[in-house]
């Protein structure tokens, strides 16, 4: 339990509103302090893009898992124990030499929490949400990703109950690597589709 809220008196308008809301929810019996603590703890320490990276690495080394992942992303996540809110239904879309995929939620910020965690601020912000459906190549270039001419590009706008994850291509020069080492190459951005794994990189 982080409990950091117990140690600082609210000062900013956001802190004051948050404390007031928590007070009312507690008084009404609609939430408990330890339940909030538990959720925060999960997202700070367990739920994050390392989960998705493990699934990607498994798909790279295990063709049968890859097929299960592409057939039903939520079931493939559950094999690792990942699942729940904002991940009840997951679709995995696969990059190939001919096709690149990128994910967005233009209306809000839908994102597969159980396997990627809390989305980064840029994913939730107007520039990304407005632009990537309309000018995805310009957006990918801003992320440093220039697709070869002729690559087809698919943008997935998560507008309903289905959440998306990109299965990137296994990079060249990784033949001798273990599944764990491979997972270390898979960044959050690779699974959103704004980056691709590099053999020399280390995932944040």
């Amino acid at each position, binding site marked *: 339990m*982080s409990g*950091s809220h117990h140690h600082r008196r*609210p000062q*900013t308008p*956001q*802190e*004051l509103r*948050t*404390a*007031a*809301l*928590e*007070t*009312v*929810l507690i008084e*009404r019996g*609609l*939430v*408990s*302090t*330890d*339940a909030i603590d*538990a*959720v*925060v703890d*999960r*997202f*700070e320490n367990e739920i994050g893009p390392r989960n998705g990276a493990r699934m990607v690495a498994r798909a790279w080394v295990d063709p049968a898992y890859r097929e299960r992942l592409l057939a039903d992303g939520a079931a493939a*996540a559950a094999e690792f124990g990942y699942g*729940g*809110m904002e991940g*009840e239904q997951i679709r995995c879309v696969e990059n190939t030499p001919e096709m690149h995929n990128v994910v967005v939620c*233009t*209306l*809000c910020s839908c994102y597969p929490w159980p396997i990627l965690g*809390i989305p980064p*601020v*840029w994913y939730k*912000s*107007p520039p990304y*949400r*407005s*632009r990537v*459906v*309309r*000018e995805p*190549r310009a957006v990918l270039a*801003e*992320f440093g990703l220039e697709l070869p001419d002729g690559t*087809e*590009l*698919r*943008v997935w*706008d*998560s*507008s*309903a*109950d*289905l959440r998306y994850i990109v299965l990137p291509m296994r990079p060249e020069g990784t033949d001798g690597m273990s599944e764990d080492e491979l997972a270390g190459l898979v960044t959050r951005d690779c699974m959103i589709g704004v980056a691709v794994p590099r053999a020399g990189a280390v995932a*944040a």
Partner: protein
Amino acid sequence: MDGAHDLGGKQGFGPIVREQNEPPFHEPWEGRVHGMNLASDVGPAFRWSIERMGAIEYLTTSYYEHWLASMERNGVESGAFTQEELDAAAAGVAAGEPVPVRVDAETVATALRRLSPHDEAGFEAPPPRFSLGDRVTVARRASPGHSRCPAYLRGAPGVIESVHAPRPILDVYETEGGRIVPQAWYTVGFRSTDLWDDPGPAHEVFVDLWETHLEG
């Protein structure tokens, strides 16, 4: 509704600003808001309450400020609590009263169950009107309420890429106090050249839409 949240294809928002090594929560209050939202149930209109914030306020506040505004409004509108309770709590907090502590193992268990794989109820609905490969047109008219159909698709031609098992349409659920209307939904593919008259190479956009959003 035609709100500022409906950002797809809109122009004038500038470059994407990234942050290295971003934490899940930038401030403790963000984590509290996230935790309160996941560990409680204050009403069915979570997203619609964000969308009704006001366009300029929406565009000039952060993600978790949206959540905070949504929980405050949604909770009052659903009757989970009253504005007077909220105001009284705010006054107390401002005067230095600590947030009360409540410990409850069952609430913890419920919250953690939500964050683990779980089976979902199935829904009965009329058979889907459309099949794989069907050409469809997105409904042109904007509704005044919450909608999961982005404005940039209105009136656009697309092709059914997947047919999904029925789910409650969120447009109705959020706008009408949690009313459940299960309906077939689809992943629909669009050519960018059917959406925008922009120069440069084409791409495809895939969007999940309920049957309500589509015409034959």
